[in-house]
């Protein structure tokens, strides 16, 4: 019985006219190819993203609903209590203020200097390549090494910066103790590392600007400064948007520099009164020093949403500016 059952469809297939099946199958395969293949080609990215990007994101959201201490066998479900607590947590708001302050102190001068550096590098210089490689060197150096060197330079008693200030007759600054001073010191570390990197991106965009536009402006009698503000800058807009958004995301996640800047080795406190504790540092301390995983997940999600909102604001503001010009 089973044998006949099995053979029956096969024999039916065999009896189909040969000529009719082949183009049909090919046709169908071709249609599938057009429809499905593109998805197959991009699938690896989405599968990997789902595993390493989406899953942690959703799992973090899940964990944030629990009072979850590392090693707990049965964490308690507490709903949105972690978030309620977070919004009333002065240390979190303090850390957010620090983060925004450090971000503004670093990103704004950084982008201005990067554009100016790029403008200088487009000039005919002797050994142009070595200058260009030179500005990328701080980026290539190890961040941890830089952090340790800068923390040494900004030492309150035996640091080089205070030594120089004192020889100039100025009073020394306790870089770790003073909130604003610590933000400036950290911003200097960030700028040291990222300005050259951003300058190279801007430089690439500058060199893509057609020479004819500059020549036309030159014929119209525009000077160097006018050509820079009226030709170069408007055409740099897409690049500047990109650079602004990436440095926003990086700036709001700043972690290594403030961590290494603390006088207490390995500390996540961000100074004795959290003068320079950033949100990421607070998140790290909550999760991996105090092992309060539920609360840390709540911080992570709030930080994520803040970054998304600021990135969107960035996008719309810069888009609006670009649109008006066009």
């Amino acid at each position, binding site marked *: 019985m089973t044998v006949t059952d099995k053979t029956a469809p096969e024999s039916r297939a065999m009896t189909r006219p040969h000529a009719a099946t082949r183009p049909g199958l090919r046709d169908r395969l071709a249609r599938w190819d057009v429809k499905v293949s593109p998805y197959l080609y991009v699938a690896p990215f989405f599968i990997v993203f789902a595993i390493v990007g989406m899953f942690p994101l959703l799992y973090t959201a899940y964990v944030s609903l629990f009072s979850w201490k*590392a*090693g*707990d066998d049965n964490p308690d479900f507490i709903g949105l209590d972690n978030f309620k607590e977070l919004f009333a947590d002065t*240390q979190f708001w303090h850390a957010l203020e620090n983060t925004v302050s450090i971000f503004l102190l670093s990103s704004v001068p950084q982008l201005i200097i990067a554009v100016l550096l790029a403008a200088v590098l487009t000039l005919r210089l002797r050994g142009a390549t070595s200058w260009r490689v030179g500005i990328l060197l701080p980026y290539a150096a190890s961040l941890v090494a830089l952090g*340790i060197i800068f*923390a*040494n330079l900004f*030492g*309150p*008693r*035996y*640091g080089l910066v205070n030594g120089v200030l004192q020889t100039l007759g100025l009073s020394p600054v*306790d870089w*770790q*103790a003073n909130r604003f001073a610590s933000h400036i010191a950290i911003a200097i570390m960030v700028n040291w590392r990222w300005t050259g990197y951003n300058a190279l991106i801007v430089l690439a965009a500058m060199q893509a600007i057609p020479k004819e536009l500059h020549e036309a402006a030159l014929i119209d009698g525009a000077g160097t400064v006018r050509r820079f503000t009226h030709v170069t800058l408007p055409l740099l807009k897409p690049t500047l948007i990109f650079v602004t958004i990436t440095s926003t995301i990086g700036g709001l996640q700043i972690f290594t520099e403030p961590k290494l800047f603390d*006088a*207490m*080795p*390995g*500390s*996540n*406190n961000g*100074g*004795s*009164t959290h003068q320079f504790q950033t949100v990421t540092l607070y998140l790290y*301390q909550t999760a*991996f*020093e*105090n*092992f309060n995983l539920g609360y840390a997940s709540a911080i992570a999600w709030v930080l994520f949403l803040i970054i998304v909102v600021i990135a969107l604001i960035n996008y719309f503001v810069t888009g609006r500016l670009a649109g008006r010009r066009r």
Partner: protein
Amino acid sequence: MTSKGLTTVTTFRKGLVLALGITMTAVSAAACGGGDGDVPAAAGPNEHVELTLATFTEFGYEALIPEYERLHPNIKITHRKTGQGGPYAQDMMTKLAAGSGLADVQAVEEGHLSDILSKSSKFNDLSKIGPSSAQPDRWLSWKYDAGKDKNGKLIGYGTDIGPLAMCYRKDLLAAAGLPSDPEAVKPLFATWDSYFAAGAQYTAKTGKAWFDSAAQNFNSMVNQLPVGYLDTNDKLTLDTNQGIKDAWAKVTDAVAKGESAKLTAFSNEWNSGFKQSAFATKACPAWMLGVIKEQAGPDNASKWAVTAAFPGGGGNWGGSYLTVPTQSKHPREAAELAAWLTAPEQQIKAFEAKGNFPSQAKALESPQLLNATDAYFGGAKIGELFAEQAKKVAKPQYKGPNDGQIQENVASPALQSVEQGASAADGWQRLVDGAKKLTR
């Protein structure tokens, strides 16, 4: 429950544990592998067993591991060494939470012990599964007792300790007109009051700092109290603990008088401070001698001295334990290895290799230890001196969960803020608020 009731229960449990321990060892010695519930049975003598041992910084076990393998041909040991204690502890807690990845024998630093003790269900009771050679009298009693959880379960075998003595700059004290000979200087370091008073005198005369940082002294003072940040019910004591309040008042008063060099321990500035002679005295656990030698450098050789005195009696700072997590597949073999490594003979070898000061009663009487001297510290008999200090340590203070974090992340920064100009009252409020937040 009254404290008396608790003690009775503990004593009863102790007896029970001891009885169980003896039975267990008898069973495992017969190698027929009878286990108690979830603890896997011991492997046969010819069965091949692979053990992992995780340590941080220097334990001095490099030569001991091949020796153990020679004595036990069926056992192969993989030694995982980590550089720094901080990342090591973090990694350990993560693996403990994940439920896998820990070594069969996992070293734990004293400062992180309270976190482990509050999760004692994830560790084997060494008094049950360990060999009979590892009896309580092997260790100094305070070291042994500190390795037990609230219910008397023994989580770790003690390795080394950090008995506290006082290190000081002979030349700086002499220049300020203070006694500087190791015997003559002892009265200055008798109590915290005499210590801070001498500091006030030194600072008034020279205008220089007496000690490196407030937190270093405050931590020692709190550790000397019968009750620390948390009581045995894991409740925060800060509102009622007069001892801590007094310690805070004394330390911040000394800061106000300019006695602190305001250098955070182990920071770059602190390292420079040794070379710049920024302070005259330093709380000195046994292992600190090596740190001073390295940081102060040959230029300051024999300017530093050490004496067998510490304000407020004695104290301990640092030292480790060897634990056997329940994750281990071979807990009995692991416990045997841990017991062998913490035997007096082996700890003396570790002391000779890396200077880790042993916690075993017999090791402290060994001539190798008692005759050890240090030329950098004027040829002081450091072995004898620290053995003497180790015996002065009182019974261990109960350390509840988060105790280490309160000390490291709340108390020390709060004192640092006072050194940076905040008022003592503001600093205290910071300590209370921070500790409350952590233990909530």
